[in-house]
């Protein structure tokens, strides 16, 4: 026990004062102020006790110093503990006061979408770009030679009639098929050629299932030993990427002036897996595109030696496969810019 009872009393008085003060605290700010009033290195009351040291007899100095340090350690604990308690309480109150209804609407500017046809077009480009196809975009206005004559569509062929083609002059027209691009490429490039030619095409048809403008994607490969099996191989990959892994293709005979042999390509119905449903009209197959082995005459029209080179070509109706993929039943919906339609289709990565 300290001999200097007065000093001891002082220490105990401060201890009692701290105890009392702490009882009355109700905010971390008050804790801070109170702590400061006792613990501040300059003005704090505990430090004031330390300054008394000079008045303590030499033999008691150690004991007194220990008593003050004990008080300091004790006070520190007290203040830390009350501070922690206050801060927890305050935090809880703050959180409670900030309670929200998490089901209220989000604040967002939704990103817009690429047009469904663009999404499909870019998806197709990605697929075929990976196979080494370059992208060639021809012009929407074509001349008769590129759109028909060079594609082995003779002058008296029904497809050339005014009924189907929009003419701008006797020589110029709106291209009816992206196949016109084939000729431009083959005239300017020597094999090996792998191109994909997407674009708008035009036919004088306007009803529920036909639009006078729609989009096609033409594919063309010209190299040595290209054959019908290569066409099937490329298209197998394509339908699997678009409609899923298990999708198969089926070739069946058809006719296009610029391919020989010509085929229609069906893919197994992705809705029913080939069992037959309303989408595939019970057949298990859906017609997706046309193609074939490039007609020798077309190669020769472009100055490519048909003895050395051969090729395959195919043409995809982009609206058609887009509509099939999303179950869109009316082609006109794609050209009406209805936000309710455009908002819905967001697939292209």
């Amino acid at each position, binding site marked *: 026990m300290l001999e200097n009872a007065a000093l001891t009393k002082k220490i105990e008085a401060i201890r009692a004062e701290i105890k009392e003060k702490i009882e009355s605290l109700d905010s971390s700010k008050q804790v801070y102020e109170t702590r400061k009033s006792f613990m501040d290195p300059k003005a704090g009351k505990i430090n004031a006790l330390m300054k008394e040291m000079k008045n303590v007899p030499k033999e008691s100095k150690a004991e007194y110093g220990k008593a003050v340090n004990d008080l300091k350690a004790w006070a520190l604990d007290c203040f830390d503990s009350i501070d922690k308690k206050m801060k927890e309480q305050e935090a809880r109150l703050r959180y409670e006061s900030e309670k929200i209804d998490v089901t209220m609407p989000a604040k967002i500017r939704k990103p817009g979408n690429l047009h469904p046809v663009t999404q499909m077009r870019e998806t197709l480009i990605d697929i075929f770009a990976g196979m080494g196809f370059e992208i060639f975009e021809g012009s929407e206005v074509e001349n008769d030679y590129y759109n028909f004559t060079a594609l082995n569509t003779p002058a008296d062929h029904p497809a050339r009639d005014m009924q189907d083609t929009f003419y701008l002059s006797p020589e110029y027209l709106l291209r009816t098929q992206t196949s016109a691009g084939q000729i431009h490429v083959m005239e300017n490039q020597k094999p090996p050629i792998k191109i994909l030619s997407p674009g708008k095409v035009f036919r004088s048809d306007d009803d529920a299932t036909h639009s006078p403008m729609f989009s096609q994607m033409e594919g063309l490969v010209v190299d040595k030993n290209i054959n019908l099996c290569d066409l099937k191989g490329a298209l197998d990959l394509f339908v699997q990427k678009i409609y899923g892994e298990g999708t198969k293709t089926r070739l069946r005979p058809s006719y296009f002036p610029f391919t020989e042999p010509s085929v229609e390509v069906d893919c197994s119905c992705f809705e029913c897996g080939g069992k037959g449903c309303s989408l595939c009209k019970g057949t298990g197959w859906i017609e997706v595109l046309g193609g074939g082995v490039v007609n020798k005459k077309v190669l020769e029209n472009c100055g490519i030696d048909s003895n050395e080179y051969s090729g395959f070509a195919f043409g995809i109706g982009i609206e058609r496969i887009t509509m099939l993929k999303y179950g869109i039943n009316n082609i006109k919906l794609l050209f*009406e810019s209805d936000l309710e339609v455009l908002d819905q289709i967001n697939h292209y990565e």
Partner: protein
Amino acid sequence: MLVPLSWLKDYVDIDIEPKELEKKLFSCGFEVEESWEVGKDISKVVVGQVESCEPIPDTHLHVCRVNAGSHGTFQVCCGADNVKAGGKYPLALNGATVIETAKDHVTVVGVATIKKGKLRGYDSEGMLCSGVELGVTEDMYEGAGYNGLLVFPDDTEVGADVKPILGLDDWIFDVSITANRPDCQSIFGLAREVAAVLEKPLKEPDLSFTEDDTVNEGFSVTVDAPDLCPRYIAHYVHDVKIGESPRWMKRRLALVGNNSISNMVDITNYVMREFGQPMHAFDGGFLEGNQIVVRRANDGEKIVTLDEKEFTLTNDNLVICDGVKPVALAGIMGGLNSEIRDTTTAVTFECAKFARDNIRKSSRALGQSSDSSAAFSKGVYEYTTVMAMKRALHLVEELGCGKISATHVDVNTGNSLEKREMKASISKVNGVLGITVPDEDIERILTNLNFEPVINGDEMTIKIPAYREDMEDYPDIAEELIRMYGYDHVHGTFLEGAAVTMGGRNSKQKAELRIKRALCAQGANECMHYSFFSPSDLDLLGYEADAKERELVKILNPINEDLSVMRTTLAAQMIHAISRNQKKGSLEGRLFEVGNRFFPKSLPLNDYPEEKVTLCIGIFGQDEDFYTLKGLCDNVADTLHISFKYEAADKPFLHPYRTARIICDGVEVGYLGQLTYEIQDSEDMRVPAYLAEIDLDALSKYYENVPAFTALSKFDKQKRDLALIMDKTTTCGEVEDAIYSSCKFVTDVKLFDVYEGLPIPPTKKSMAFTITFTPRDEELTDEIISGYVDKMLRKLQFTMGIELRS
């Protein structure tokens, strides 16, 4: 093309089910678009014999006991006036389906199921049927047209299914024929393919007939236009007795959709269906000068066709004339003046080949078409002219409706109808397919197709029948092989022989996609409009008569006026799109389109027009304004690592004070602004709309721009806010430019406040900017910055009268 199975069976022994045949046809290139059983609606109807027939008092009904053989004996009430004991009639059993008719017993209203019931208190366990109720007409079965019961002959087996008896078990296939196979546009033509695919012999129709000694003295045929008519065969038939055709012929014509007219006309229609060769029968008595002349019409010449329509012709039309006047529109329709009548006693048959494009063009130009013109438009091969004439004459003889004279005229250009030889390398043929078809299969398939193949090592020689004008080269042989061998033999390979190539988008395609995605990220949806629009759209936009946008590429044959010219702006369709959305109740949205505008290099068009890739942005809604649209334009610039400048401008369809031209490197590349209230109102828009149009082709030189990296300064950036008082007419852009140019360390100038009103004088406004100074190699101290700010303020004061707001 409609093909009855029973008719096909005339030429090939078909021993497979209809659905199986359909699959076989499909696999070799003939898609059956639809097929149906003739009596698809009829079931459980058998031959019943009425054993007793008692009238029901006070009604027209009879109560009958009907014996249906193994099916039993039934009590049936019957209202027909020709029911009698001992008669054999079709009996619909309980649960049968038949055609339902209205009260008149003639008008078809649907299909009915027969159920047991009571009539006037009498049980009725079935129904005795008329022809109509079984879907059978008089053309299909004798007596079927009677409005009462259909009566079977006495020797008909009681209890037998009526369908085979009435031909209701026959099938009709609607087959689609591709444009390269006009030889299959007929039942016999298709039968050749059926025989080949089933590997059965083909039975040729009977072409035999006997000419008598009669000669039509002086009859002549002259073809003045052999380019349009390479073959014309005429044959004179005398002692003609016009009358009805036999039922078998009527029935077949009915099944393929032809009405029976008279024996002579029916023969031409029958041959047309059978061989695909249009024929015509002229009344021989009405050919003035006893001659036929095939020539181009004189301009202004007139003809009235069988359907009593008059046409004024041009030199592009081909006509068949007698010695004086046109008697037929060649290949399209006969003339009224030489029509077959009941009184006709002599007929001149025509069997010709007319040029495909000429008939098609005439038919379209005159707006007159027929089965004949449709066939010629698809292509008729010369091969069938000879055959069809023989067949028609045979039928005349078979029907006994005329006598075959010795007067036969055949005008031709010397084309051979014999087989032609083609040699091909088997390895090349297989090379097209990518597989090896075994030699024996090649031989088998080509033999079935009547090509008489001879294989000698790698070389094969085939003989091509004249009806296969489409066979030109070895890829055609490859196609013939694979369609019969089966496309399932084609297995996917992946460009095994091809060189490796680099694929992908070019810089233009990449940049356009980047721009689109940048706009999508800002909430804009891409849309797509037609490349053509209406001339009235330019009126809507208020373009002057001499505006560049009025130099239009016109479509010669538009669908309608609204889709008749190539667009020179994307704005009009964007306005319509915004309007449509607002009318539907979407009152905010962002849209954009990337598409071409078309500008002729010369008119009339004798070169490709210029196609300018253009971006159009349209936004609308209460939260949108000029500046949100400007932000979207800046997004486009950022995407290309360039910057746009904006200057106030005019556009006839935009707000006079909220419109700007967009400038890039001193070149005008587009505009933006708010749509005028007049257009907003006329288009029924409830909220304002804002439009921008940017010429992407003008920006394409920046498509390969790479963003430059500026090393970060190790010193802190400094910011100063300045509130400036200036004339109201001074623009933000002018002040910004002045601030930038006053100090090289200024890297950003951002307007944060605009104020007008007290205490600022009425002609002035205050604009406040945050200016960022970015140090380079040394620190920018407060003193240095203050020096720059003072210099800046002096310059603003001196050049623009701008003061610091105190």
